[in-house]
């Protein structure tokens, strides 16, 4: 691309006349390129030629939006604050924004009746929008006394606009004397609402009928539908926004819909925070490097001669492959290896549960992210050029897009053996008898989203030939179970496991999305074929297309209780979208079904869950693993039945709660230390039940839900762990083959080892995430990591300590019984000051003390059942917006009972982070699919919560005590945070507006419908 820097505007215009494109800050161009537009050959930088600065109401076209935001200009400064984010606004300019011809500022400028200074002389903005010509040099605003501004997007900030509604007006007394109204933003073309303006002109504000005004705005606004929001929604929002902005919103009286519980005092809870933690709060050992950007991730590896890999993805969501021709790619200079299925000497399949996913597709592609070929070349440009030279001949097939339809006999088959991946049923009691006793029945279908893990570090890493003869392979890619990655690679490569070393830590977030193999097979195959080190890091766009997602579920649940609120019957029918390959989706469904009754006793129950292959991407493990989806349904059902039976949310739960010591849902033996009642007590006493002031546009509500989360992999899968301790090089090494994904494995190892042995955190060194150096401790999933760390140290510490004391005793000439471990080394038992008599760094390396154990299992083997559960109560206070239908979460509170907290900072992080990931699931996140292709392409069309979307307060407590004699230690913390935030928010929305949203993410339009119908009921 050529970039010219003309020295005069005339020169610039001459270049533009030849087809070059003008550029100032370039953010508009970048946006278009990110949407797939071809980059121009020639850009003309006009930034330095444009006036920059603000003089009264005239703004130089080269002025940045961030400067305008701070300038205190009427309407426009506020509007600029809603465009992009500050780091982008520093680059984006007003002239560029107008030149771009779309965006949030144009309607504001229309309302300000902006006049442009251009190279062709002064022109009104309106004329320029109709017929853009000349270069914009300046913008002069003509504000009126008051203004209206409302941008409604897909989340609270940094969002594409669904519609911007704006205006300026002046009044004398309360009569409208001048007025300009406009809409625009995103897909909505900028539009002045002239008919509405004419109607309003001269009217007295207090005498305008809001309903009449809103109807006129709806009739006037032109707005399209898109994948995210309907035209009707956009028009209604514009109508409400302008009506509220012009006429104000009279405060409406609001009464809570949910009965308030009577507080029952909870037991003493540990406040989990730095402030309250005192001595228990430590800086995590990984924090110093992370805060400095000094931690090398596996995708940061760079070395001379290292090749760059790229993957060719399927061109269709479902197609037969007739032929793959790589000859032209292989002939391209700089290309070192091109691989296809023909290069796979072993078994071309992987999958944690069963191996239905090809490493490289041979005869068929089943989703648009399926890999067909890959290239290793000297750099990214050559690799990408080579991909373009690979010819694949496809025969497209019909696409399975709906999991229910996919199970019809006539449906296209994603795999030869049909689309039903698994079906799980369970029945107990007598449903007929149960329904006969039912006085109140609630039946509904709860729908959950195709949530994306959204780890900030996308899938990637590097691989290289390894071993003394270079006949092995080293694969370094973020993962969640290196030993299993190695096993799967060994099948694909037809290489003994011993010759494969997998390094899977550190990784920049995983949340289940790196549990299955990602780029490892391609990396290994490329490194083996090229004989060189190869790196590969998926772009976000590729990660969105190819990566696993959460299984979308439709959960039909029918629950009945008797007149007193006691549950008598429940039927559950679940259909889960597997996507193209199984991965852990069967386990997710199984876990969902295991949580079908939540923590409640229901004598008569019948459940069925089905998992169906489709061509909708591919799904698998995601934090919560089916349990959070099921909790959404059951915890809403509880509140709905409570409302019918006239009970408060605490009372109905107390009435139906499991009794500690009783068998689990499947009749299995479960671990002691149940804390559900204590969690209910804590929830009952929450300050969030009290009223809170808010602005008149919002309706407030509070809700709660219980968390009940099984830990570990369950009865059926192998769930083993190895762990070791040793003294090496003066440090106590904790060897644990789990992965550090950000959750705090390293901190937990330091904390638990130092606490158990009585040494300092600094005395510990951790060895993890590497099959070459650490033992196989199982997967870093299923909330099992905390337990593995605790148990591993508990089992190895005594013998390790004995050896150290004996070695020290010999050196010091003292009986070991008179010695103990102290911070820094070995000290005298009974001494007040723990000063080491012998420092660890003066001691010889010890033997390695290894243990191997199974994660505790239940006795139930007819299906998969958990033995250990963790408990919590989640409360949410929300505000539902009358204008946009959007839900703002004001406060979250979580009381947790997951046993002793190993490391307070890590524990707090798991709860807060899980809550917000769940908030995204509930309110904004979904990968939309159309005909088997994702509508979502990147973070511009996938709305993870920003800092503006999170509540003002998050309060976390822990109830740490276990029952006397409970041998099982800490419970899992990783999945509690996300476990029940969805039903807590849904129940809070009911409290606000009187209806439970049953589709996640909640559709603002349907909430507006509810508000509208209750307002019209109130009027009549």
């Amino acid at each position, binding site marked *: 691309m050529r*970039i010219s820097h003309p020295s005069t505007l005339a020169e610039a215009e001459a270049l533009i006349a030849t087809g070059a494109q003008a550029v100032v800050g*370039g953010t508009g161009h970048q946006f278009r390129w*990110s949407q797939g537009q071809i980059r121009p050959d020639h850009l003309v930088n006009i930034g330095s030629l444009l006036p920059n600065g603000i003089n009264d109401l005239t703004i130089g076209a080269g002025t940045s939006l961030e400067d305008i935001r701070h300038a205190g200009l009427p309407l426009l400064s506020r509007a600029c604050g809603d465009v992009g984010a*500050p780091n982008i606004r520093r680059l984006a300019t007003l002239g560029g924004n107008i030149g771009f011809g779309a965006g949030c500022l144009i309607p504001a400028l229309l309302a300000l009746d902006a006049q442009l200074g251009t190279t062709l002389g002064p022109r009104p903005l309106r004329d320029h929008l109709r017929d853009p010509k000349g270069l914009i040099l300046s913008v002069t605003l003509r504000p009126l006394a008051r203004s209206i501004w409302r941008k409604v997007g897909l989340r609270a900030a940094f969002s594409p606009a669904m519609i911007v509604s704006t205006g300026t007006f002046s009044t004398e007394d309360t009569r409208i004397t001048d007025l300009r109204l406009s809409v625009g933003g995103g897909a909505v073309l900028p539009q002045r609402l002239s008919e509405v303006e004419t109607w309003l002109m001269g009217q007295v504000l207090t005498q305008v009928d809001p309903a009449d005004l809103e109807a006129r705005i709806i009739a006037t606004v032109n707005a399209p539908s898109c994948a995210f929001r309907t035209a009707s929604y956009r028009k209604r929002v514009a109508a409400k926004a302008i009506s509220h902005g012009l006429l104000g919103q009279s405060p409406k009286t609001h009464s809570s819909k949910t009965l308030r519980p009577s507080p029952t005092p909870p037991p003493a809870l540990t406040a989990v925070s730095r402030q309250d933690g005192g001595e228990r709060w430590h*800086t995590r050992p990984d924090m*110093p490097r992370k805060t400095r950007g000094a931690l090398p991730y596996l995708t940061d590896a760079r070395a001379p001669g290292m090749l760059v890999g790229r993957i060719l993805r399927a061109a269709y969501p479902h197609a037969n492959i007739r032929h793959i021709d790589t000859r032209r790619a292989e002939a391209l200079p700089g290309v070192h290896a091109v691989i296809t299925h023909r290069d796979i000497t072993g078994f071309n399949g992987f999958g944690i549960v069963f191996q239905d996913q090809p490493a490289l597709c041979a005869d068929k592609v089943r989703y648009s992210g399926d890999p067909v070929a890959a290239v290793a070349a000297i750099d990214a440009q050559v690799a990408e050029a080579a991909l373009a030279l690979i010819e694949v001949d496809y025969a497209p097939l019909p696409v399975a897009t709906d999991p229910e339809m996919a199970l019809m006999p006539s449906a296209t088959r994603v795999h030869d053996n049909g689309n039903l991946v698994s079906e799980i049923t369970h029945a107990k009691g007598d449903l007929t008898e149960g329904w006969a006793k039912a006085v109140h029945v609630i039946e509904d279908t709860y729908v959950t989203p195709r949530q994306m893990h959204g780890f*900030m570090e996308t899938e990637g890493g590097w691989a290289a030939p390894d071993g003394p003869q270079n006949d092995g392979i080293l694969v370094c890619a973020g993962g969640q179970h290196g030993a299993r990655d190695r096993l799967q690679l060994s099948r694909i490569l037809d290489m003994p496991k011993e010759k494969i070393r997998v390094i899977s830590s550190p990784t920049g977030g995983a949340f289940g999305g790196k549990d299955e193999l990602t780029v490892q097979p391609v990396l290994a195959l490329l490194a083996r074929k090229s004989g060189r080190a190869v790196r590969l890091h998926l772009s976000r766009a590729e990660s969105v297309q190819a990566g696993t997602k959460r299984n979308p579920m439709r959960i039909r649940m029918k629950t009945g209780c008797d007149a007193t609120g006691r549950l008598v019957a429940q039927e559950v029918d679940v259909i889960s979208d597997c996507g193209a390959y199984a991965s852990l989706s069967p386990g997710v469904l199984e876990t969902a079904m295991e949580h079908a009754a939540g923590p409640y006793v229901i004598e008569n129950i019948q459940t069925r869950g089905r998992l169906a292959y489709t061509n909708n991407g591919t799904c698998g493990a995601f934090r919560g693993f089916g349990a959070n989806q099921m909790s959404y349904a059951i915890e809403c059902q509880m509140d709905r039945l409570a409302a019918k039976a006239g009970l408060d949310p605490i009372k109905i739960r107390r009435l139906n709660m499991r009794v500690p010591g009783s068998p689990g849902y499947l009749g299995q033996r479960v671990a002691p230390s149940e804390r559900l009642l204590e969690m209910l007590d804590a929830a009952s006493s929450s300050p969030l039940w009290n009223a809170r002031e808010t602005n008149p546009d919002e309706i407030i509500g509070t809700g709660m839900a219980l968390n009940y989360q099984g830990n570990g992999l369950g009865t059926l899968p192998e769930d083993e762990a190895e762990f070791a301790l040793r003294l090496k090089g003066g440090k106590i090494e904790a060897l644990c083959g789990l992965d550090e994904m950000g959750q705090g494995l390293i901190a937990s190892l330091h904390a638990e080892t130092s606490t158990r042995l009585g040494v300092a955190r600094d005395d510990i060194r951790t060895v993890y995430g590497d099959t070459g150096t650490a033992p196989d401790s199982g997967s870093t999933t299923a909330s099992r990591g905390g337990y593995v760390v605790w148990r591993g140290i508990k089992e190895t510490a005594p013998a390790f300590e004995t050896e150290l004391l004996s070695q020290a005793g010999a050196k010091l000439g003292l009986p070991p019984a008179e010695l103990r471990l102290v911070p820094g080394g070995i000290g005298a038992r009974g001494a007040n000051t723990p000063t080491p008599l012998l420092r660890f760094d003066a001691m010889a390396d010890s033997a390695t003390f290894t243990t191997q154990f199974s994660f505790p299992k239940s006795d139930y083997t007819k299906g998969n059942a958990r033995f250990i559960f963790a408990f919590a109560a989640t409360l949410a206070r929300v505000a539902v917006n009358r204008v946009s239908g959007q839900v703002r979460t004001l406060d979250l509170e979580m009381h947790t009972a997951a046993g002793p907290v190993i490391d307070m900072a890590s524990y707090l992080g798991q709860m807060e982070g899980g809550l*917000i990931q769940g908030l995204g699931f509930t309110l904004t996140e979904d990968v939309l699919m159309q005909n088997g292709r994702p509508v979502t392409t990147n973070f511009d069309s996938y709305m993870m919560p920003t800092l503006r979307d999170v509540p003002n307060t998050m309060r976390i407590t822990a109830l740490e005590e276990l029952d006397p004699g409970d041998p099982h230690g800490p419970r899992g913390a990783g999945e509690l945070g996300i476990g029940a935030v969805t039903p807590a928010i849904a129940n809070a929305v009911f409290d606000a507006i009187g209806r439970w949203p049953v589709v996640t993410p909640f559709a603002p339009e349907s909430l507006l419908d509810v508000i509208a119908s209750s307002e019209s009921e109130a009027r009549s």
Partner: protein
Amino acid sequence: MIGFTLNGQAAEIAPDESLLSALREQLGQTGTKQACDIGRCGACTVLLDGHAINACLLMGWQVAGKAVTTIEALETLAEGRALVRAMEEENGFQCGYCAPGVMMSLVGLFTHTPDATDEMIRTALEGNLCRCTGYHSILRGAFRARALIKDRI
């Protein structure tokens, strides 16, 4: 090639290459992270003449003759040192992949506005996505940094 200053040293970039790609692929500076390439996550935030901007949105011609500061030079700034200490104390991050971008957005704020209000801190971070923390730990770190800067610790 275009000349610019990278953390005080002379450096070069092709006029049509993104600064992010140049940093990570040509100049070996992998502290700046790549996570969306389209300005929608903030992981690649750097300072351009002292102001926080997404490196993925900057092309070579836009940095000509300017000073680029990346996370690798964070601690050459007094505010950067305070931020590091505060984030360590508060355990601001989890996986840490968003950290370089968050730290650069904040240091850009604090070097110009050491007494930034809570609202200004929130605004400065609007363009930085974090998937692990839920942001509160980052905010606690930012508030703590402001206190450290105020007390010249």
